[in-house]
């Protein structure tokens, strides 16, 4: 992994790492991938991928309203809100 790849990855993950710490981050990631890459030594052709240990099927319920949306309560949890909206910095210039 080089710095350009790391920068792409940081953007994908919406994270920031200071320029001076980037080499260290790359090293840490590479160390972990060295461990993960031991998977490549296994013969896995006969195994289907497993998503969920119990292989559950989806659950549905009747279409009945149970809880009213606690709009005001949830808006109060926001760092910044105004009447019906969450307030964020300007999106369109």
């Amino acid at each position, binding site marked *: 992994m080089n710095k350009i790849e790391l920068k792409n990855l940081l953007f994908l993950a919406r994270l920031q790492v200071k320029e001076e710490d980037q080499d260290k981050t790359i090293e840490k990631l590479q160390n972990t991938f060295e461990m993960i890459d031991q998977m*490549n030594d296994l013969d896995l052709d006969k195994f289907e991928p497993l998503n969920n240990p119990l292989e559950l099927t989806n659950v549905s319920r009747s279409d009945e309203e149970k809880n009213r949306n606690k709009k005001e309560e949830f808006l109060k949890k926001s760092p910044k809100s105004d009447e019906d909206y969450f307030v964020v910095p300007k999106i369109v210039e």
Partner: protein
Amino acid sequence: MNFQETRNNFRKKQVSAKELTEESLKKAKEKSELNAFISHFEEYALERASNIDANFDEFKDKPLGGIPIAHKDIFCTDGKKTTCASKMLENFIPPYESTVTKNCNDAGSIMIGKTNMDEFAMGSSNETSFFGPVKNPWGQSLVPGGSSGGSAACVAADITTISTGTDTGGSIRQPAALCGITGLKPTYGLVSRWGMIAFCSSMDQAGPLARDAFACSALLNAMASYDEKDSTCSKRESIDYEKGLNKDFGKLKIGILKGIENLGISEEVLNAYESSKKILEQLGHSFVELDFTELSSGICSYYVIAPAECSSNLSRFDGVKYGHRSEAKNISELYLKTRAEGFGDEVQKRILIGSYVLSAGFYDAYYRKAQKVRRMIKSKFDEFFKDVDLVFLPTTLDQAFEMNRESTDPNRMYKEDLLTIPANLAGLPAMSLPNGFSKNLPIGAQFVGNYFSEELLLNTAHKMQEVTDWHKMTP
């Protein structure tokens, strides 16, 4: 005093819920240097205890009636701060109650506080908490294990007799082993995940921590319930695990691993394991050697799948709707700065790994391959359980270690969970119990059972604890 005696005394009115609560709150204060708690709810706990005493008849027969409890700070508690040990949620007050804490309340317990943990449950030493590390009651320079380190330390230090935890890769069993207590990770789907802050949704499972299997069975009775709010929660007839302790399951065939000495397990842990095998033999059980060379690859699969799910689950923390927000000029900067400031190093690292393995071009090489390894591990266990009732192995490679441990192996911390991860990948129940001491520090061993075999696990551990004293040792 242990859980069973405490509950008996409460039921016989020899002690009130208020006295028990005052005692727990006092001990929590006296042992504040352990840093086991993120929040204390003194006023709330005393008021609830008085209420329970005033309505004694209603609470006396409940599984946790009158008993103080500490909850891992990963369970949302209505109107009470829930941080997940992260700066991101430093001041977050949930508007709803998790099913686990609601069930424990309904069972008559009294929450005295929320326990410290690794940030977003990512860690094996409790050193990644934004609120500082937890100290092991057996040695203050030592880690208690993680991620449920505060919950384990709280029980080991006798602050409460029971606490809750969550186990995604070993986060109940490993701290239980390092702190000398008992802890159970139930089958995936037995306990509702609703209101439990998500890390890796296909492996996260809540479970009990306590001194012994008896208390774990009472707490599991309270925690386990079908919940339509969690679509992965299993709909099954409920079992009384406490009653199950008195059942006779007969002589068991217990699986042990061939070549276990080659896994890098310390001599002390191996010696304790061998001694426990003798006790199991004396109890009439027999052993079957199992070939599980695939065990070590579990860790590779886990460190792809868990970060992948974490990167997706933690994308909700964006500074808009709740939690930490950084000052920013535009929306893109808001996301970047909020997340870079709000998450600690280990969490950011796992988000990066997860984003990488899920990104276009790498999906087949990592994520899909890891899911195949996951199938391989599950198939292996399915095969084992055709022959054996339980699998028995050490919980950890070594005993409690020093904080800020330096290792020549950069992945040493991840290997803490080498022996616990396979049960999470397969979704199987597993239970750690103290099985020895060396250098005045506890050692743990675990049983892994077939799906929904918690009754057998608890029963077997209980029978072992009837003839051993390791679980009675206190720091």
